[in-house]
């Protein structure tokens, strides 16, 4: 099998690339599961507000909603660029 791999060139198998990509995508999707339908809009609008003051990337904002029995916590994480 080594010889075969060698003959075919040692590129990374495409299926393992697919697996790695999917693991990231699915983890991300599952993080958003069960959240209220307004969350993507809220996230987008918060991003717009923040951008009026600081220039941040699209993925610099991370928002999540955790619910206990009687209270919910909206957690907002924004990675700001280094002050330069």
């Amino acid at each position, binding site marked *: 099998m080594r010889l*075969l791999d060698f003959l075919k060139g040692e590129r990374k198998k495409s*299926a393992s690339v*697919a697996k790695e990509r*999917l693991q990231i995508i699915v983890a991300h*999707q599952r993080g958003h599961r069960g959240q209220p339908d307004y969350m993507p809009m809220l996230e987008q609008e918060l991003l717009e507000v923040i951008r009026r003051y600081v220039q941040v990337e699209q993925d610099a904002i991370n928002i999540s909603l955790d619910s206990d029995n009687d209270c919910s916590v909206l957690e907002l994480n924004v990675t700001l660029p280094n002050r330069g």
Partner: protein
Amino acid sequence: MAKIIVVTSGKGGVGKTTSAAAIATGLALRGNKTVVIDFDVGLRNLDLIMGCERRVVYDLVNVIQGEAGLNQALIRDKRSENLHILPASQTRDKDALTLEGVEKVLGDLSEDFDYIICDSPAGIERGAQLAMYFADEAVVVTNPEVSSVRDSDRILGLLSSKSRRAEQNRDPVKEHLLITRYNPNRVDDGDMLNLEDIREILAIDLIGLIPESEAVLRASNQGVPVIHDDKSDAGQAYADTVSRLMGEDVPLRFHSAQKRGLIARMFGGGARR
């Protein structure tokens, strides 16, 4: 009380209708009173796969809108007396279905049948959500391919939040993974996701593995569900799937490559006969 099973996927063209037809036929052949419903309103297909397209008079939308009774719309399968088909409309659109209407039809069918199989349309919109809403179990049809796996995960999210069982806080919909169009040769070559990877990513139980097979096209050409072709790999794989749905423990087949010559392997030819 019938068991309601939705066959769904998110992504289009992955084999939902092929699978719904095969599973419904298989359940009927095993002695269960079974009805299979086409929820793909506007784009009906199931009638062709079941070979009953010339006997369609009324459809699901007619029943929901009170233009025909269930007994007028149900088509009895030619080959199995335990099996009935409820076709979709070709002329209306998905808005012709209402939640109350679907609930009434499923409720009425529940009294006479053991299994109700719902063939979902593609997508994650209203049509697909209606098809899954009342389900007790879901067969999530997935091809070994990135977009299909991602869409399957979206569907799993909907099943756990937008189904009646979820909304009523009852036991969740039982989710089953059905991998179709699997090509073990390409998996061996490292160019196709293998079944363990897919199962691990989606984290649900595997109910069946259907190989990429020429028997499927042959079956759809003839309007005979592929499970009737009991000599074929796909037919046998669907029969195994039905056994597992009925709670039997059946070993997995068709997961490893057929032997090929060195030359074929080196050049990656992977067609399955």
